[in-house]
């Protein structure tokens, strides 16, 4: 990896920065001291000027988010750190915290200072059991050193940070679902407005930021907005810690300037496609972002460039599939994920993801119908933008993008009754008939021309 643009990962080779003393020796907590000497307006302004945008998927300008918090609500304000990293393919937050936990505490404390918050929460996904312990140990050290608690760093500013563990629900990464969960309810999203900045945790003004976003903040305070803007692209300054996984030689988390072409990440850093095979498809930002193909290798990995190419930067989680992978299977597995993780609140999501996963499963296993393809396209259109939150939209990404780029693979599954890539499936009779209905897998779905869906093998 070229070291010139390593900001958040500059100390990843050095385990001495994990304990507080080592983090301080490397310059840690200097930014918090500076921030305590600045006004809230000054802090918000420098983050606004830096152009920092949220790294959790949406890319919303961080300073602007902070500025939406009203000063005169008469209520307490809260910072809530979203460490519920659960987007399939994404693991940069995990490694950032494992290798430099105090950087998250420092960034969170500065954010708290900017909105005059005295109680912050870090919501960590339950599966990050050890990472939560690492973070709690760092919090305990920060309290013991006077960097958290009453009168931090000897001044008059009080701040507590409480770690809260999730329990295995992807939806809690959605900010309003996260708040519901933290308040002790099922993790279901809320209708916006009101936005969390006005009415969030405990009906009070709340800022919710991603781990990587907050870890950028101390560097911005230390080095200034102009320094930050000198990295990355004009509209997306800074670096991004990309996770690349799947069929590559050297999967891992790589910090590169925003806008770095996918080709450079794949070939120079990740060592190319596993076994020298041909690239077939990749997600730019996790399972919620439409697949791109080998035709998109020169796309720059920043919000605007990826969007221009027809997808989304999301969390910067690149999952790579090669020529031996079946795209129908990939789409089915990802849609199954959304069906499993749908919180059940909105009908298009709860029902649509389930039905879509069944139809994809039928095509994958060689029992697809000719009219399944328009049905899939229709389902996508009827799920997209019709639910409270973006989870349902995420489910549509693998459906629509595989139909767009890999229609021939769908058609071959249906025509041949088997997967054209792996060869699995019953195959068609010589006469071209579909495989016998009786051989269909249990739970397959039948669409009648009129009337309701039937499920084979379901109790009536």
């Amino acid at each position, binding site marked *: 990896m070229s070291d010139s643009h390593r900001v958040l990962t500059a100390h990843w080779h050095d*385990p001495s920065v*994990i*304990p507080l003393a080592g983090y301080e020796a490397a310059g840690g907590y200097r930014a918090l001291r500076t921030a305590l000497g600045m006004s809230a307006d000054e802090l918000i302004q420098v983050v606004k000027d830096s152009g920092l945008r949220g790294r959790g998927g949406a890319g919303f300008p961080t300073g602007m988010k902070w500025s939406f918090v009203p000063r005169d609500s008469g209520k307490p304000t809260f910072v809530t750190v979203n460490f519920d*990293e*659960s987007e*399939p*393919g*994404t*693991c940069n*937050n*995990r490694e950032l915290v*494992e290798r430099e936990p105090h950087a998250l505490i420092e960034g969170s404390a500065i954010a708290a200072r900017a909105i005059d918050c005295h*109680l912050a929460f870090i919501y960590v*996904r*339950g*599966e*990050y*059991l*050890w990472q*939560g*312990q*690492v973070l*709690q*140990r760092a919090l*305990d050290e920060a309290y013991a050193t006077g960097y958290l608690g009453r009168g931090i760093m000897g001044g008059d500013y009080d701040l507590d940070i*409480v*770690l*809260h*563990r*999730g*329990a*295995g*629900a*992807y939806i809690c990464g959605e900010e309003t679902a996260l708040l519901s*969960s*933290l*308040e*002790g*309810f*099922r*993790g279901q999203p809320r209708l916006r407005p009101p936005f969390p900045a006005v009415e969030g945790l*405990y009906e009070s003004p709340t800022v919710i930021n991603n781990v990587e976003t907050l870890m950028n903040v101390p560097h911005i305070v230390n080095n200034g907005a102009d320094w930050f803007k000198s990295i990355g692209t004009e509209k997306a300054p800074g670096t991004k810690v990309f*996770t*690349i*996984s*799947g*069929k590559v030689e050297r*999967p*891992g*988390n790589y910090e590169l300037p925003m806008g770095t072409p996918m080709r450079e990440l794949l070939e120079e850093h990740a060592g190319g496609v596993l076994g020298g095979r041909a690239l077939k498809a990749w997600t730019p930002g996790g*399972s919620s972002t439409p697949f791109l193909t080998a035709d998109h290798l020169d796309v720059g990995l920043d919000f605007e460039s990826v969007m221009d190419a027809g997808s989304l930067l999301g969390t910067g989680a690149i*999952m790579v*599939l090669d020529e031996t*992978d079946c795209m129908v299977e*990939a789409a089915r*597995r*990802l849609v199954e*994920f959304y069906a499993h*993780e749908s*919180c059940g609140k909105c009908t298009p999501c709860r029902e649509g993801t389930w039905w879509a996963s069944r139809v994809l499963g039928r095509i994958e296993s060689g029992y697809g119908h000719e009219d399944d393809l328009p049905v899939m396209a229709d389902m996508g259109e009827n799920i997209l933008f019709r639910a409270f939150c973006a989870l349902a939209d995420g489910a549509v990404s693998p459906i629509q993008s595989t139909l767009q780029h890999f229609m021939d693979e769908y058609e071959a599954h249906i025509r041949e009754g088997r997967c054209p890539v792996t060869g699995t499936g019953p195959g068609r009779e010589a006469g071209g008939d579909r495989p016998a209905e009786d051989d269909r897998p249990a739970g397959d779905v039948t669409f009648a021309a009129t009337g309701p869906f039937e499920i084979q093998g379901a109790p009536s």
Partner: protein
Amino acid sequence: MTVFEGERLDEARAIIARYPHGRQRSAVMPLLYLAQSVEGWVTRDALREIAGLIGVRTAEVEAVATFYTMLRPRPTGTHLIAVCTNLSCALLGGNELLEAAHEASGVPIGGEVSDDGEFSVHEEECLGVCELAPVIQVNVANHDRVTPERVREIVGSLRSGEVPQPARGPAVESFKAASRILAGLEPLAEEGATA
């Protein structure tokens, strides 16, 4: 059976005190984890007692307990083996690991616990260690780049009373012990100060 009494009740009160006054409902998840650490799963008694502790109805606690997959409203094995089969792991053999875990542990596919009560197997969505796929967790501790052979070895070790060292952090001896960590009651030792 009373779940929260003596030391457990003190711990429950300390958990509630993490949250602002009047917001004790926020403690429901760590309290459910604490109950799970005592009984190995979330029992009806636990639901009722937690409702009493935070001043809500039992049904409201149950609504939370049944929403989250890491809270188990059914009897669970001494050890929980979680296998990721989401895309990055599936591309590199995650489905074979799930098969191996079921086969080696004796937990039937679709079943909850092995006959001897030692194991539960759970098919997981993304565990957030995609760069080291395929991965599993044993009592919520990570094992990276796992093979079906390694799954069988791990199950064998657990059967003989040894919990294998995970890829990062200390070994977690049981699902109950994991639940106690998740309730925020087990700080890491200083010695573990390196990754």
